[in-house]
């Protein structure tokens, strides 16, 4: 039997890969792992390509029983990881066999655990991806989060990876607070006064309980809009604009005092002014920030964003080379 028995699904555990690009124009967001770096590392550790189906668990890790010999790796948030109650290393390829049970203690840092299994979680590919998009119930395991007693199909494992290999400390992310999110200011930032924009950048924003794969709602400051006669079709509220597209990572400002950072499962457009976009690399970081923690937006430019992206790709290459020895 080549599957995983889910003893406990955790709080919100879904199958993800690196996402489902190419359907934004019909209003479908990309989904995919919130922390793409940790997800890629986990897959590489067990000999999978980075874009292989794996599990993303928010706040509470699942309890999983294996039915055959596999390599597993846990990355992302920090927690004690156990197999049959015995501690094992995170960020390391760990061998498991039939009846072995993987479990987790409470998270001590970060928000999302990634659990990769050699061969990958082999749910059906939907529109080019195994990622779960729970809002319309597509992809992943039945389009939903895992529940107790689910059985997850596994793919055939390759022979590339070796047990005991690990990602060096220097290549593991750190989750200091406040999380600093580099942001390209723009889009509809003209809706804010100079003072409003300064408040946006100076405020240490607190993550509310409404923070999930769709977006993170923040609180902590009140942003001043410029006075204007609302243009035709925009609606009467000063935070409203003529409905437009929202980039993944963009920050919308309903009401001016509750910015929402839109993330992998977000609505693709709407009528609220947006004031900038968190760069793609720092979406990994916000994906590891928890309700109750704080974030700060740091203004940056396109060059910095592209450099950060190349550096992340280079780190992933380093991990790949270290593991495969070439």
């Amino acid at each position, binding site marked *: 039997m080549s599957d995983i028995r889910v003893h406990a699904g955790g*709080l*919100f555990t879904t199958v993800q890969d690196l996402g489902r690009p190419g359907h934004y124009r019909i209003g479908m967001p990309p989904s995919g792992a919130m922390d793409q770096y940790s997800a890629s590392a986990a897959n590489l550790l067990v000999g999978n390509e980075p874009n292989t189906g794996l599990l993303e668990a*928010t*706040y*509470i890790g699942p309890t999983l029983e294996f039915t055959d010999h596999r390599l597993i790796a846990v990355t992302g948030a920090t927690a004690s990881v156990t197999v049959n109650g015995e501690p094992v290393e995170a960020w390391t390829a760990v061998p498991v066999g039939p009846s072995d049970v993987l479990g987790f203690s*409470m*998270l*001590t840092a970060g928000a999302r655990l990634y659990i990769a299994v050699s061969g990958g979680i082999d749910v059906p590919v939907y529109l080019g991806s195994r990622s779960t998009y729970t809002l319309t119930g597509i992809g992943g395991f039945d389009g939903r989060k895992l529940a107790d007693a689910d059985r997850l199909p596994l793919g055939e494992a390759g022979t590339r990876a070796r047990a005991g290999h690990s990602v060096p400390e220097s290549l593991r992310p750190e989750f200091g607070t406040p999380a600093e999110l580099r942001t390209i200011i723009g889009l509809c930032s003209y809706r804010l006064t100079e003072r409003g924009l300064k408040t946006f950048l100076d405020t240490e924003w607190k993550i509310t*309980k*409404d*923070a*999930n794969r769709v977006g993170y709602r923040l609180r902590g400051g009140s942003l001043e809009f410029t006075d204007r006669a609302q243009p035709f079709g925009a609606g009467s509220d000063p935070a409203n604009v003529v409905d437009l597209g929202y980039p993944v990572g963009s920050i919308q400002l309903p009401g001016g005092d509750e910015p929402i950072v839109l993330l992998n499962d977000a609505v693709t457009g709407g009528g609220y002014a947006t004031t900038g976009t968190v760069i793609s690399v720092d979406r990994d970081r916000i994906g590891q920030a*928890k*309700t*109750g923690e704080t974030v700060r937006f740091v203004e940056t430019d396109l060059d910095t964003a592209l450099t950060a992206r190349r550096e992340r790709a280079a780190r992933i290459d380093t991990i790949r080379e270290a593991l495969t020895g070439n």
Partner: protein
Amino acid sequence: MVTIKAGMPGIFYRRPAPEDEPYVSEGGTIAAGQTIALIEVMKTYNEIRAEADGTIGKFLVEDGDEVEIGQDLAELETA
């Protein structure tokens, strides 16, 4: 004595709904698996359950408070 801890961050509630009675009062006896409170996060209300039989001592957070992962919620006197 042990403490029941929050496994997730969010807003802590001692009642199933604002107009209802609390799940359990201080000094009340509970069985393992029994719900003692809710934590609201990610648009869901998650039941917090006791891991053992016993008597609830003091609640260590107020109804409606924000809690973080690992925070002590209530004292539990086990037999």
